[in-house]
């Protein structure tokens, strides 16, 4: 009798605990399906659309996301630099390259669901309309805690961060033109500064 109760308990604990834990793990960490990866940057253009897979649908509901529509834009996030090292608030990064196709874009640093604040308490962010570029449309943006000449995104604090680059009114969201698109590179230029 006791053996039977024990066996039933094991079965129930494994089923409920294992099922819940595996689902939580997949929703939190594994973000594979439907990803569009360009260099260090990843976007999920299908998340929030009716064609999204069941995991993306569950994530949309769980996190309360109202994702950008196809006519609005695509948000790319980077949690690692171009060499594959995790992005940190206490490192300096040079973001350089060409503008992705779209009407304009914004770039900001975030920790969790919040944008990082810069030294004057404003969001650590830049957009393509207040950006300095050279004659060929290329640009370099420095991300770091110390002021830098040119385009600078000031950050404060330490630990891991992510960079979010959102391209608005972009052909990327419809899934075309991906082949010849290049997102900017994120090159680390020193740490603990």
């Amino acid at each position: 009798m006791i053996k039977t109760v024990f066996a039933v308990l094991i079965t129930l604990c494994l089923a409920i605990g294992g099922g819940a834990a595996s689902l939580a793990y997949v929703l939190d960490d594994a973000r594979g399906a439907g990803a569009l990866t360009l260099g260090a940057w990843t976007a999920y253009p299908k998340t929030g659309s009716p064609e999204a897979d069941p995991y993306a649908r569950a994530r949309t509901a769980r996190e309360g996301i109202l994702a950008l529509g196809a006519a609005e834009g695509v948000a790319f996030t980077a949690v690692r630099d171009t060499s594959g090292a995790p992005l940190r608030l206490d490192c300096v990064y040079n973001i350089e390259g060409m503008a992705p196709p779209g009407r304009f874009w914004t770039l900001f640093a975030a920790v969790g669901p919040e944008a990082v604040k810069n030294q004057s308490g404003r969001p650590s962010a830049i957009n393509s309309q207040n950006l300095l570029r050279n004659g060929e449309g290329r640009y370099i943006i420095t991300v770091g805690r110390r002021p830098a000449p040119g385009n600078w995104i000031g950050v404060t604090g330490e630990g891991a961060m992510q960079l979010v680059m959102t391209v608005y009114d972009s052909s990327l969201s419809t899934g075309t033109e991906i082949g010849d698109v290049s997102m900017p590179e994120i090159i680390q230029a020193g740490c603990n500064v």
Partner: protein
Amino acid sequence: MFRLVHAVILGLIGAGVVHIVVLFLMPEMSPRDAWSRLAEDGGLYAMTPYHSDSSLAGQSGVADPYFQAAACRFDLTDGIIHLAQDRAVPFWSASVYDRQGHNIYSLNDRTAQNGLLDLVVLTPGQMVDLRKSPLQEMEQSIFVETPITEGIIVVRGFQPDESWNRQVSEFLGGLDCAAEPI
């Protein structure tokens, strides 16, 4: 021993079943989805401004600091939604979401007539009724026919720098999301 192995195998099969069942129930049951979060902030048809709220973030789950957004929940059984604004901002976009938060229609200022926001959301049945007696004020409107009744509209406005904050909040604040019977 045999009984233990039996229990573990049953448990693992059960874990798979629980995983799949919860996965498919989550969009219907989540107490934290966008609809429920918006319901905490305002009633149906209330255009609620958001400055940096994660529920209105992009795919990344983080809200863009250069944007202000406003959202309202609607129920088309009460009437059609006519959202219009004759002010201009550097860029605006609007999306219609279903009850589960899936984006079913989106547009921006380049897709709209003269760059002005003028959007009507209605069901195919209401569209038939409206065709019988077209309203003058909707001549320029973009019509979004949708089979859903409950949904969410979000309007986002771009502020390239802080001098635009006031214009963008007036743009969003002037939106009236009330249901209009036909």
